[in-house]
């Protein structure tokens, strides 16, 4: 094995197929997207080079910035809810009865596709026959809001299924990380008389800090490019009040036949995601990471 690994040519040979694949389906399209962003192109006919016109129009496009705001709201909310997931994971790893069952229950939504979840929640939110409003009416609210058509509520209403959808994923990650903490550390703390809360905050959290950082990046970048559930549930409406960057990109490229502009939005989305990742890395940087043992 060592002999193979020391041969640079062999390494290159084995890495080559995946590099070619990644190049062909990820990096080259990214470069092409940036390039199409420089064109006036309806996606079908011939292209015309217009320099940075699409990008400068983008910077002045209020509707685009609205969609950026909505995406950022989602990113912020998902980051905050990570705390919720973390608490659930902490509870599940403490020796409570039925932890295994709960873990499976939380994981279940992750097995459904976004479109199925969207259809499900469309029924829940139906203004007259939905479960939610039926419940509210029976509780005495005579005129509950029409969740998905009211500009005031639509973002919040969309976030609930997203929170529900990803709960299992993040809880699973935290659960695995917490289980990885050597039991000896917790036992030592117990002998020293630490309370469960002290153990959680002073011992467990610092030890899984690296995992938390990764999940923050995942949550932020994931929400910035979020598309499917919103697209099915509201299509960005009413009047653009739930439009996010990805759905705006889709609308411009595929519905308004402006592929050049859509590509510019896509490229911008990539840059925003990269910047967000970099900023999060910087903000959460620690001088000397805590190690086990």
């Amino acid at each position, binding site marked *: 094995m060592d002999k193979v690994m020391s041969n640079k040519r062999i390494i290159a040979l084995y890495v080559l197929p995946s590099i070619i694949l990644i190049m062909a389906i990820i990096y080259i399209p990214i470069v092409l997207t940036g390039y199409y962003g420089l064109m006036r192109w*309806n*996606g*079908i*006919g*011939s292209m015309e080079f217009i320099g940075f016109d699409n990008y400068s129009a983008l910077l002045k496009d209020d509707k685009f910035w609205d969609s950026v705001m909505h995406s950022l709201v989602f990113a912020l909310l998902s980051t905050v809810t990570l705390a919720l997931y973390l608490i659930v994971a902490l509870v599940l790893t403490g020796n409570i009865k039925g932890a295994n069952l709960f873990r499976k229950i939380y994981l279940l939504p992750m097995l459904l596709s976004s479109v199925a979840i969207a259809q499900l929640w*469309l029924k829940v*939110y*139906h*203004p*007259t026959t939905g479960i939610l409003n039926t419940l509210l009416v029976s509780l005495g609210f005579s005129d509950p809001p*029409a*969740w*998905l*058509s*009211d*500009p005031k509520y*639509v973002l919040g209403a969309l976030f609930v299924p997203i929170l529900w959808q990803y709960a299992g994923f993040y809880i699973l990650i935290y659960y695995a990380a917490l289980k990885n903490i050597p039991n000896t550390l917790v036992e030592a703390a117990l002998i020293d008389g630490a309370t469960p809360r002290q153990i959680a905050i002073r011992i467990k959290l610092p030890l899984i800090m690296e995992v938390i950082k990764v999940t923050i990046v995942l949550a932020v970048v994931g929400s910035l490019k979020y598309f499917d559930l919103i697209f099915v549930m*509201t*299509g960005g*409406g*009413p*009047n*653009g009040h739930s439009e996010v960057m990805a759905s705006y990109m889709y*609308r411009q490229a*595929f*519905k*308004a*036949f*402006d592929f050049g502009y859509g590509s510019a939005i896509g490229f911008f989305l990539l840059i925003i995601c990269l910047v967000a990742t970099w900023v999060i890395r910087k903000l959460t940087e620690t001088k000397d990471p805590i190690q086990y043992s």
Partner: protein
Amino acid sequence: MKRKAIAVWALMLALVMVVSACGSSGGSGDKVTINMMHLWPEGTSKTQYTLVKEIIDSYEKEHKNVKIKTEILENEQYKDKLKVLSGSNTLPDVGLAWAAGFLEPYVTANQFASLDDLLQGDLKDKFVSGTAEAYALGGKTYALPVELNIVPVYYNKEIFAKYNLQVPQTWDDFKNVVKTLADNGVTPITLGGKEGWTGSFWYMYLVDRLGGADLLDKAIATNDFSDPKLAEAAKMLQELVDMGAFNKGFNGLSNDEAKSEFNNEKAGMYAMGTWEVPNFTTNPDVPQEFKDKIGFFRFPTVTGGAGTSDTWVGGPGVGLFVSEKSKVKDEAKKFVSYFIQQWGEKSVTEAGVIPATKVDTSKINLPPMFIDLLNELGSAKKVTLYADVQMKPGAAQEHYKLIQALFGKEITPEDFAKKTDDSLKAGK
């Protein structure tokens, strides 16, 4: 080692040659495969799906060497896929396209073949006047329509009878109907506002009745939305919203969800294209008692308005195109011609679709609602093509949003007209 490798290569090469030889022998003998894409899935458009299948079967029977392969997608996915395919020059040989604004980018990119030879030949004088023309650009016709639709207002006779309501003739009558129903806790009109185009019908009709049949066409053609009547129509629409005319939360509901409220008799009225008529007449899955309860009426006139009640919002729906890049263009055209003729003979009776080709109502046996509608179509003074189809794609997207904002009372009627004007002038 080396010899072995050569042997392997030789073997592989031989295999490839055998396989490709098989492929080419299959293609000889004048066998032709025509690929067709359409948007009537068995689940949601059963009658159309069956008719298409029937026509293809009989064509294949008459032309033994032709095989027709179909790919079926639902409306919106169909549009997206068509666009992606055209980007890589791999459009199906035959497919369906919409008129005017939708067609334009495909035609300028030289994706669709001109079908003028069919129009001058086999299909001469077969179409209702003004229908095939909607697919013409620069004097050439690029698709041939298979359907023609207008938008009546359907109503539930039982609900109307319960509250002693008559079919409204004028806008004041209509508002009275709305008020009576709303006061009695019945949803007067159901609307799937999430999709924009549904609300557009109501706006278009008000513009028509208020400002006459040509106002909207002219405004869109000249990119000038400054006529005060255009804002006034928007204002009348908001008055209707204020009266509680539309179902709760309509801006978050799709057309299908809104339709189910009408079909479950929870709403009194529903304005939709005549593609819905089979559900009120021939569809075997709908109970007869419900079908008997449904009628339709012309959109009421506005007192003092320039419009009359015999103009309709509507237009040809989808039309068949032949791909310019197709390898079997001639065969595909022959099939299109056959399809249009067969469709014209059978579509009303078998699928409940009004074809764009002329129908002789005296010869066929049809449910009364169809006969009435076909007669309305025969005596119609004008059919105004859907606003979103008339507009360029960018402006159409903006139109959907503005209609939502107008119905949702987020903008004033004046801003609605102003912003429509801006989006038209942007020229996208």
